[in-house]
Every structure is written in C-alpha cells, then in structure tokens.
C-alpha cells in the first residue's frame, strides 16, 4: 500500500462521516450510520488479525462483550466514569487476550477458530449466567457517557443519535488511521510475512509468537472499544453482544469487504449493517435475500468487495 492509498482511505472515510448527514432525511439514519462505524471499528481489528496476520478468530465478540459490560459495571462497582470504563474495558480485553492468546495462537486454521470460538462462548456464558454481577441474559443498563450533555453545556446542541454518529465516526477514523499506519510499518510487514510463511518469517528474525499475540491483543482492543461504544449509545447491553453470531458477523463483514483492507472493513460493515434495514421491505424474504447477497458477493468478488472492485477499476484503466 502506498502513501497515497493510505491518505485516500482516510479521506474517503472522513468524507463519508462528514458529508453523509447532509443527505439524511431523519435522525434514524444517524443511528444506522453510527452502527456502521461501530461495526467498522470492530472489523478493522479483525482486518489486523485476519487480513494482516492470517489468524482466524470466531470469538472476538467476547471482547466486545467485555468492553460493553465494562461500561455497565465499572461505573457502578468501581466508580469509574463511563468513558474511563471503556478504556478500562479495553485494557481488560487486551489483558485477557494477552493471557489466553499465547496458548491458543499456537493453534492453526480451524483449530484456532474453534479455540477462539470457545473463548468467546465462555465470555458470553459468564455474562449470561453470573446474574449477581451482570443481571443475566436480559441485560443491564449502561450509564450515560455525558459527553453530549457536556457539549450542550458549552453551547453545542446536538441530538443524542447525532452525537453518537459523529463520535463513533471519529473513533472509527482514528482506528482506521492506526490500522493503516500498522499496515506499512515494520510490525505490519512482519505480520503479513508470517501470514505468508511462518517458517520463513522466523528465519528472518520475526518473533512469530510474540507478533501474533500483539495482533491478537490489538484486535481485541478494537473489538472491546466497539463493544463499549455500542453499550454507551444503547444505554443498555445484553450478553448477545458477546454471542457467537456476533463473532461470525464480524468475520463475515471483514471477508465480505476484503479481509486485508481497512476500507474493505468499512464497506463490509456498511453492507451487512444496512442490508437488514433495507430488506425490511421484503418482510419474510429478508433472510433469504441476506443469504443470497452474501453468496453472490463471494462468488463474484471472491477476494471481497474492495479488492475485486479495485481490480476491475484498474482493469478498465488499462
């Protein structure tokens, strides 16, 4: 990736965040937009782990769960401000990822997938079953972040959904910036190298175990922050965020968009987030169409939307 594609990616993302609202007929679109951004943030983490480093995780929703519940619980039990609670959640997710990552990252392919799946399910189970702490499967309220109140106090009057749109957008762009930095950095190159050939990576001096762990921790932090953002804007969270389906959804978004690309992550998130909203007009055909779209995209754009589109555009230029 060259400097220019990096800058272009950031510009496109920022432009989308800023310009789209001019076309929003109602507040509801802000809500969908902010969901896209939150999902894109989580998926960017998957891009780092899977797209760069080639490691599969089917359990990252577990980290989103940790991030989300941190925002619900830390303010109550530790007296943390909800914003700090999100950072606390991120640290906790990173810590958990660091602890479990070492043993499970020794596994490869589907074995890694099933181990991470187990990890995610364990987190979801604890959240659902330790009702004394988490209030169980029906979920728990999350305190208000209070940032838009603060903005209001300094004269910026902004609806709740709108605030969350811009705030999530900002966090997503920062997340994308970091992921793009990583891609071209020595660390990112080393991650992609171990994806290509682990043994060759070791021979050129890459500490594969440590690097995989780093990617795992970083992606866990992304997922955790996404979970926190979701919890804070919904002001409510249930163990579903940590569920298996959510993990699958993240991976699907990443692959659909083009697993190695940050802009692809956004595209994948945008499509899978808006699709169910668009498909409501088809009522009972919704699931059928959703499945169909997923299949068609992967059949006709096998490397994912973005890389395939890019290839086509380049082909036309020729």
């Amino acid at each position: 990736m060259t400097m220019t594609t990096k800058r272009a990616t950031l510009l496109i993302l920022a432009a989308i965040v800023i310009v789209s609202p001019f076309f929003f007929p109602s507040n509801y679109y802000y809500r969908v937009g902010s969901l896209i951004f939150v999902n894109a943030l989580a998926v960017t983490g998957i891009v780092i782990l899977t797209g760069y480093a080639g490691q599969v995780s089917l359990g990252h929703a577990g980290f989103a769960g940790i991030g989300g519940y941190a925002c619900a619980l830390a303010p109550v039990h530790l007296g943390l401000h909800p914003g700090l609670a999100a950072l606390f959640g991120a640290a906790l997710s990173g810590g958990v990822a660091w602890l479990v990552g070492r043993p499970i990252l020794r596994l490869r392919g589907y074995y890694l997938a099933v181990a991470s799946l187990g990890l995610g399910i364990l987190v979801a189970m604890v959240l659902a079953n330790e009702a004394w702490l988490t209030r169980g499967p029906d979920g728990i309220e999350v305190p208000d972040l209070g940032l838009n109140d603060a903005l209001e106090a300094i004269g910026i009057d902004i609806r709740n959904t709108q605030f969350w749109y811009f705030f999530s957008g900002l966090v997503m762009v920062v997340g994308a910036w970091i992921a793009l930095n990583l891609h071209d950095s020595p660390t990112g190159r080393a991650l992609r190298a171990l994806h290509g050939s682990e043994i060759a990576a070791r021979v050129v001096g890459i500490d594969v175990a440590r690097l995989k762990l780093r990617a795992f921790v970083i992606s866990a932090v992304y997922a955790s922050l996404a979970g926190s953002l979701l919890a804070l804007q919904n002001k409510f969270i249930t163990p579903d965020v940590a569920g298996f389906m959510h993990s699958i959804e993240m991976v699907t978004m990443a692959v659909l968009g083009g697993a190695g690309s940050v802009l692809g992550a956004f595209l994948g998130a945008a499509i899978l987030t808006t699709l169910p909203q668009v498909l409501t007009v088809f009522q009972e055909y919704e699931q059928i169409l959703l499945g169909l779209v997923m299949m068609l995209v992967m059949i006709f754009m096998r490397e994912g939307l973005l890389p395939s589109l890019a290839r086509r555009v380049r082909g036309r230029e020729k």
Partner: protein
Amino acid sequence: MSALLEIRNLGISFGGLRAVHDVSFAANPGEIVSVIGPNGAGKTTLFNMISGVYRPGAGAVVLDGRDVTGMDPFLLARLGLSRTFQNLQIFQNMTVLENAVAGFHLRESGPLLADLLNLPSTRRRARAAEAGARALLERVGLANAAEREAGALSYGALKRLEIARALALEPRVLLLDEPAAGCNAVETEEIDHLIAEVAASGVAILLVEHDMKMVMRISNHIVVLDHGEKIAEGKPEAVSRDPKVIAAYLGPDAAALHEGEVAHA
C-alpha cells in the same frame, strides 16, 4: 581457536529412521562448506536442525562459541544465522520488494507504539530498509520485478528472491539449500559469483547443491552425507575422487568434473 559455526555429533530420527546421525564439521568466516549426498541423505534435515526448524535429537550446534542447539530460528537470526529453503518459502501475499524488506526485519523493527502512530522514527527505519532491499534485488537481478506480486514470479526468480531475503539479514552464517535448482548453467554461474562474493565479505556459507560443477568450483570444503552419516570430508578434489562418494552419489560421470568439458562434447 574455535570455528564460527561448529556442528557436533548432530543427529535426529523420524520414527525409526535415523535421518541424520553423528555428523560433525565446522565452518569459518569466509569459507564455503558444501554438504552433498544422495537424495534423502539428510542434508536438508541437517540444515533444519542447524537453523532451529527442527530440534536435534542429539549433538550440538555451536555458533561463535555459544551453544545454540534447538534455539528458535528467530533468535538464531539475531545471532546472525540466515538461510534459504529447498521448498520455497515465499511471502506470497506480498510484493517482491516487501519480501526483500522483510529480510531487514531485525534492523527495521522498533517500538510497536511508534509503528501504530507512524512516528518519524518508523518512517525512517522503513525507508532505510526499502533502500537496502532495492539494492539487494538489483544484486540478484530482480530489480525490475520489485513491485510485482511475489506469487507471479517464475521458479528460478523465486529462488533468487529467497537469496536476496537471506542476505538482507547481513548474516554471519548463511545456509543455502539448493540455490541453483531451477536455474540453467548460465544463471547458475551468476549465483556462483554472488555466493563467492558474499563469502569473500567474511560470511561462513553452508551450501547444499546437486550441481557438482558449481560445488567443485566454489567450495573450500565438502562434507558428504549418505543415509544420514558423514561418509567423507575434505577438499573438493579429494572428495570427488573418493570411490565411496562416486559410488553413492556422483556416479561414473564424476570424471567429467575434472577432465574439463571434454566429456560433454
């Protein structure tokens, strides 16, 4: 005075098979030591043990006086040991240039935070590595393929890419496993020169190669393996006349190696 790289009684078994047994030899800076032997003699396995890909079942690898037996390859890389592979190990998902830059990993990598934030120090390191990598690609004749996807190179080109990547580490010990496989006589000669040049700069080179002309031409010392055991060792001249070696490996054509190209015509 001890040698830079010392192999002491190295051995390993797979199931019942003694793939390598009680092999010892040494290599000094600037020296090219060739390991030859029939297919399945254990040459690659020996390399795999020396470079830490396999943990030896017996014996020791001593690098610069330090016992490095069974050490992980990435640690060995830090100590200056680098290699190429008989079965190509290319980073297929990256460009040719990036493959070469990856070889600079040890000198290129810095704090993670700097990488995440793209601090000037990161950019500086990356630039230096890229410049170095381009120079190396030039050296192996791949300069004009730098921006291509590595997966799109022909076999012979990939072999040379591996050499460039291994050289990027600026190793003190370099292990080359059949570097000239898939190259014709002329290309082989180019690789010859490259290897000789690298050796001349003070690198100890271990070479596995079936191209006997090349081996005879550039080796300082030859170790012959058969069925995992060392059956001969010495100067090229002596080894190639050893009846045991001729019987097991070189075959009757061996004479050609010395009698010039007459036999070829």
